[in-house]
């Protein structure tokens, strides 16, 4: 793996200050509140966070799939090849979605149409985006199914989604998502519903195929083990914001934000036998309704200071290369140039 970042090439996807709110009866939910990150060609980044941290809403906002109402993208930019996806006419957005940027989701059963044969669903994508005729598209669909490791693909093309197991359905989704050689694959909890031996198969498949066709991957997950196995860079989300971003080693071995280090320490590990009680972060995540502009982690933070209760911290650059950014007041003195 390693970062494929080259200096002369800008990011392929640049998300800036993305902000998505939902109107509810109880008030405004700030699901995503000023998220910025960039993705370079060929690399895999992770967005990791617990339920309600805003990681999936970030993904849906990028793809403009937020149901509106109640959701609304308040501000921000999603720059793909210099164009802001948030301002694109719907027709142009459709040409990008599923073609240049494609997605796989947690539950393949909800993303596949149960009434249509696999062939129909795969061929539809290929004909729509690649202009192949029916015969060519069918041939390519069969080849794709073979590549994702489905035995006798010719025959299985004519089966319905329910005839596939959970792992096999996720393989079909991957075949569909990668059939147009996309620039970006957004994988939203792609293995959460799968058993651990099947998860290993699927992660290996995603890694191998995206490497071969040079697709950049945004891996959205709550599982730090999956993050460690897959990603070059990591964005940690808490209460709708990215609180720390850095290279995989920075995050796992030298995490700066108290939430990140607490999260990593709370995960039981198969390679370590038990020594005393498991570390646990006290309390629970905040309610995102009308969340005031202070550090949302401070009630659970062992190192909370007075200022944390009053203002949200800016992003401080820390570490030698300056590639790590952390939103935490602890780095007010040592961190370089706050950018906000």
């Amino acid at each position, binding site marked *: *793996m390693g970062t494929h970042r080259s200096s002369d090439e800008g990011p392929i996807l640049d998300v800036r200050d993305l902000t998505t709110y939902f109107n509810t009866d109880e008030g405004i939910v700030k699901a995503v509140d000023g998220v910025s990150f960039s993705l370079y060609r060929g690399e895999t980044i992770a967005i990791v966070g*617990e*339920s309600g941290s805003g990681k999936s809403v970030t993904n849906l906002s990028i793809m403009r799939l937020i149901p509106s109402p109640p959701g609304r993208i308040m501000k921000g930019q999603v720059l793909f090849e210099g164009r802001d996806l948030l301002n694109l006419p719907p027709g142009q957005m459709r040409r990008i979605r599923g073609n240049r940027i494609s997605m796989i989701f947690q539950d393949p059963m909800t993303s596949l149409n149960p009434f249509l044969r696999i062939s129909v669903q795969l061929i539809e994508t290929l004909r729509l985006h690649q202009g192949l005729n029916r015969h060519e598209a069918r041939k390519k669909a069969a080849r794709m199914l073979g590549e994702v490791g489905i035995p006798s693909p010719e025959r299985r093309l004519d089966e319905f989604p329910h005839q596939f*197991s959970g*792992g*096999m359905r996720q393989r079909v989704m991957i075949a569909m998502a990668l059939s147009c050689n996309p620039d970006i694959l957004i994988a939203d909890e792609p293995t959460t519903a799968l*058993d*651990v*031996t*099947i*998860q*290993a*198969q699927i992660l*290996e498949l995603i890694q191998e195929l995206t490497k071969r066709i040079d697709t950049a991957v945004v891996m959205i997950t*709550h*599982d*730090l*083990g*999956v*993050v*460690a*196995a897959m990603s070059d860079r990591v964005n940690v989300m808490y209460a709708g914001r990215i609180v720390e971003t850095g290279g*995989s*080693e920075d995050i*796992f071995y030298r995490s700066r934000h108290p939430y990140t280090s*607490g*999260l*990593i320490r*709370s*995960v*039981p*590990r*198969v*390679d370590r*036998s*038990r020594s005393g*009680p*498991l*570390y*646990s*972060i*006290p309390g*629970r*995540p905040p309610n995102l309704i009308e969340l005031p502009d202070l550090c949302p982690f401070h009630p659970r933070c062992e190192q909370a200071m007075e200022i944390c209760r009053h203002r949200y911290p800016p992003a401080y650059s820390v570490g030698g290369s300056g590639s790590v950014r952390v939103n935490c007041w602890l780095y007010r003195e040592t961190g370089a140039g706050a950018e906000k």
Partner: protein
Amino acid sequence: MNAFSSASPSSPPLLEVRDLKLHFPVESGIVFRRRVGAVRAVDGVSFSMDRGETLGLVGESGCGKSTTARAVAQLLPPTAGDVLLEGASLPSMGRDELLRARRNIQLIFQDPYASLDPRMTAGNIIAEPLIIYRNRGIIELEKRDINRRVEELMERVGLSRHFRNRYPHEFSGGQRQRIGIARALALGPRLILADEPVSALDVSIQAQILNLLSDLQREMGIAFLFIAHDLAVIEYIASRVAVMYLGRIVELADSAALYSRPLHPYTQALLSAAPIPDPDLERSRRRIILSGDVPSPDLERHGCYFYDRCPKRMDICKTRIPELTEVAQRHQVACFLHHDPL
């Protein structure tokens, strides 16, 4: 509370499960229903548990681990085999006798949203087992004793007693799981069957609940049959571990031995597939990637249940079923790589 650990060595184990089978019939036909087959959810499981110990039961979906727990609690009548609690056979008990015995077996479920009655307050949910057993005359308690006991239980699991009049929807997932735990503790059981109690919870909350369960066990000497699909969670909580595949236990050993020296090829694959939050380690470790899916449990098998996916299968595995055999001190495995056929 540690009154049970002083039992004499000759006394029967707390729980003994002998060749337990649970087959769900598959029927066909509109007018004349006839049995056309069976889903062999649990297909010959044997193990025993001592007082106060935690046995982890681990396996992937459909391997029969939850069904095993339900059959132990007699929520599902076993097709064959026996379940002995302190030497007394549960399947052969009458209704009243079973009710008395069940006081010592309680359950905690995975989904704290589905397992609590949304129309009952937290206090009533926790008090319900006490009230049922009092009304049947099995335990003697005054009404105000029940109230006091509910408050004690709530504080013990980390819930404020002021929450007793709140309804389940007013609690978070972690808090709801605490209500479920308090209810399971109410009757002072000797055995708790915990079915994936933390798998619906976020990591930071999961750690809190695991620590609570581990504290309770140490203080009260309750035995736990702890079911999970997450090997790391099992390693943290259990002193012995049973690995299930397709309705059978394939390996059973002390936790330290199982994690450092797994013998069964399935256990090895399962351990190597479990992701570890450590990028260097993830990059360097070699995964055993199993091919294919878990086969359907509705076929009668004449060879090793793991044969189709086993990377080390031999000819004999196709025609003989390996039985769980002790191959080292307190280490049992069902695999012909480690023992000869019986």
